[in-house]
């Protein structure tokens, strides 16, 4: 099996599990299919030699964010199917709008002349390593990195403030 076949099979699995996220009626199934989608996207990262991001994607997205979603869903006890149905014309309009957007994207993006930039396979393979990314992160991107820590602190404070009982706020 050559690498092209693997790439196409992975792409098909990614799209299929992403479709199941929006099509399954049960919210719990949607979340689990989204976890599958994130694993597929991580596999795509490995295929593109972005090993660090593949691991971070599994840890942060599938491990942290999706567990948070699952936790909230279970805490609110919404696992039974109580979602009100969207009307059929509304669904048709949404699908037509999304399909038009896809047609515009594909028409605009796939016709461009994307010539191979002549990057040596050696440098392209080294890009995704922790060593290269860490060096770049702590030299060129040091200011955004520090600012993102401030963002995290404000997110933590905001989440604690919002999730407290109302009597205790103030």
């Amino acid at each position, binding site marked *: 099996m050559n690498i092209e076949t693997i790439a196409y099979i992975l792409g098909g699995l990614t799209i299929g599990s992403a479709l199941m996220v929006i099509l399954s009626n049960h919210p719990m199934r949607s979340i689990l299919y989204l976890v599958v989608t994130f694993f597929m996207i991580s596999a*795509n990262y490995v295929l*593109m030699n972005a090993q660090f991001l593949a691991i971070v994607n599994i840890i942060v997205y599938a491990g942290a*964010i999706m567990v948070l979603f699952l936790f909230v869903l279970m805490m609110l006890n*919404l696992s039974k199917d109580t979602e009100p149905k969207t009307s059929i014309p509304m669904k048709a309009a949404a699908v037509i709008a999304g399909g038009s957007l896809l047609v515009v994207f594909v028409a605009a993006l796939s016709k461009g002349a994307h010539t191979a930039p002549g990057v040596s396979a050696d440098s392209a393979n080294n890009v995704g390593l922790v060593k290269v990314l860490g060096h770049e992160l702590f030299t060129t991107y040091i200011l955004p990195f520090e600012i993102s820590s401030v963002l995290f602190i404000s*997110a933590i404070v905001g989440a604690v403030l919002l999730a407290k009982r109302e009597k205790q706020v103030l």
Partner: protein
Amino acid sequence: MVLATIFESVSIQYYLVLSSILFVIGVVGVLIRKNAIIVLMCVELMLNAVNLLLVAFSTFFGQSDGQLFVFFIMVVAAAEATVGLSILVLIYRNTRSVDIGLFNKLKD
């Protein structure tokens, strides 16, 4: 031995189309679902479609800037999910529902 990159056997257009499809699935999900948790998940799906394209171009051009942008997008997505879900818990506490239609009340 130097391993070849994926782009010697698969064109960059394949990843352009793949992440476009993922993004559109996210948009359609936001439009057709009424459960606010699923809507937030579809936003995450759209963010991941953009991440996939950034990584593809980063490998295609052999430069690491795209992968660092993906790193920062993950940071912002984590913060967004935290605050969004806590707002959702607060709304559920007041209205006993996470129906997205009830967010009309923000007007009043």
